[in-house]
């Protein structure tokens, strides 16, 4: 297992709101030394050319290059764990099947619910547990 100071994560989502929320959840774990952000699949791939990351939180629906396309490329070129964070990734949707075929390390629904001070705690636990289990 990597030491905390070396671990890096990349958040890929076209919504800045979602990136803010995910960043907040991940930040609270004190698990990563660096958090990168990208707005779409293309930006993510460009960033991966220059930077080594250990985990990618990947949205599916994005302009320019969506998550499915990006995942295909990532699997060809990079050795990295990928968690799909998308409302389309629910069980039964055709996307979910595709994503499984492309062997994502984890699939999780987007965090949602009331915005209040306990937000990160309530929403983030499932994602945090999933991240921890991937690195154990």
């Amino acid at each position, binding site marked *: 297992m990597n030491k905390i100071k070396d671990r890096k994560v990349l958040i890929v989502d076209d*919504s*800045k*709101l*979602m990136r*803010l*929320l995910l960043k*907040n959840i991940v930040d609270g774990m004190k698990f990563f030394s660096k958090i990168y952000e990208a707005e779409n699949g293309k930006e993510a791939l460009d960033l991966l050319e220059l930077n080594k990351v250990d985990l990618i939180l990947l949205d599916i*629906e994005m302009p320019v290059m969506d998550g499915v396309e990006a995942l295909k490329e990532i699997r060809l070129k990079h050795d990295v764990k990928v968690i799909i964070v998308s*409302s389309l990734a629910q069980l039964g949707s055709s996307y979910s099947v595709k994503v499984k075929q492309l062997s994502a390390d984890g699939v999780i629904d*987007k*965090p*949602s*619910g*009331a*915005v*209040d*001070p*306990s*937000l*990160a705690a309530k929403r983030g636990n499932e994602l945090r547990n999933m991240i921890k289990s991937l690195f154990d």
Partner: protein
Amino acid sequence: MDRDFLNEIWLQFETEAMEHCTSSEDLLLDANLNASEETNIDSLFRAFHSLKGLFGTVGLDQTLELTHLVEDVIDKIRSREMLLNNQIRGVLLKCVDVLKNVISSSSQEREEIVDENLYIVKQLIVSIKTTDFHVDDNLKNIERKDLGDPFSVSDKSDRFATVDLESLDFLFNKAGLVYSHVNVLKRMTKLNMEDAQFIENVDKLIDTLQTEVSSLNQSITDLRLVSVNSLIRRLKRDVFETSTNLDKNVEFSVTGDNERADRTIINALSSALMHLLRNSVDHGIEKNEERGQKGNGKIFLDFSKEKDGLLIKVSDDGKGLDRKRIEEKLRQLELLSDDDIRKLSDTQLYDFIFQPGFSTKSDVSETSGRGVGLDVVKKNISSLGGTINVVSDPGLGTKFLLKIPNIVSTEDCLVLSDLKTIYAIPTRSILWIRSVSHVDFQKHPTIRSIVHEKNIIPVHNAHDLFGNLAENVDELEEKIILINMNEKAFALSYKGKLTYSEHVFDEPDILVSKLPFVSGTTVDQDRNIIFRANLEKLFEINERAA
């Protein structure tokens, strides 16, 4: 979790959600949006899908539910199970209004909006999906409930920074002041002739300063300019709603929407343009059955740059103005004799539609009527320092031409009210005002004169030049006013009331322009006509005498 982060989350939510709302609105108002334009329908679907996601993310579950219903409808249109007509467009636009209201409200208000409107819109959406869809009744229902002014929602995605108008005005005035100070300095150096080298250097410095300051002035002026584009969405929406209400098929297109004008003008223009466009839909464009072969009605709005301002054209391809009906109306109003009416050219006759109380439609229509006519539009435009004209070809259409200055220039004026007509002199051209007892007159055999910058300036009597009215002003002391502009000077003596006030002047009309010393007209609060003194003409008096 800290407050700042929560605020940031809400702000980000508002920004993103508003962006999706405005892009949906734009797509819905796009005349080409139909099942054959799949990319646009797809974009619309994606916008609502993203909205759904955003509402879920912040836990606005009821709003999410509404968005989900709309998404379903769009999906049906996309798969061609359903045809997108104007009525469905109208319903979807109302949905966007409600969503905008929800997004821009505080958390307490949100509950209320959801209670009041969400239910109605939901019913509408549900009814669209059922086969026995009577949108008319449902739309009436929603209008009675009143969703509030959809345009009161501020556009967060506006590309222009919001700047406090007060501080802008301050900068604007400040720059003007600096500019005039530099001019004073320049004049002063001309008087000091002791050291030529020194003066030359100072002169150079001042020239540089002047350029700098004038560029500062320009950039501040530019800051006040806003793209007319900010008006377009609401105008498109208005045309859409008016034509749907009147059951007319209208295609509305806008060109030159990147032109810019002063904020004050943009704000004031919106109601005038809205009125003109409603007028075009209502009175210009014929009913569908009357148009027949001509097909959909076409309305154009065009902005273009003109010297010192903006030229706006509002045109339609409707039936044109009806000369006979205007003549009839004129006879009814007994404004002119039959003979005079017949003698009027088309242009002169058409100009009467801007008269108060002039509406050729016997039944004042709900849509464009609303108890006000084109006279109000004209008044609006004049108050901006602009002009409005109409040209019309029977059977081909009507075109309104608006000329608007880029900047409303209110002038600070010295007002001389004890004259036959009130005259105003821009204060920036006035060097001083003194009582006669404090003025050193030149000893001159025939004409009373003063000395200014080594020049002898004759004193002219304002009452002689502009016409006398003063009767009870004997007890008032006579004042000498020294006007100075572009190195020229003119001295005026005046006995009567003097006040300062700000005015926006119109170009003098044909009658007034024949008067010798008038360069503009305006009306004050008490409906008195005020003439702006034509300073160039005053200076000519001295030049002719010299």
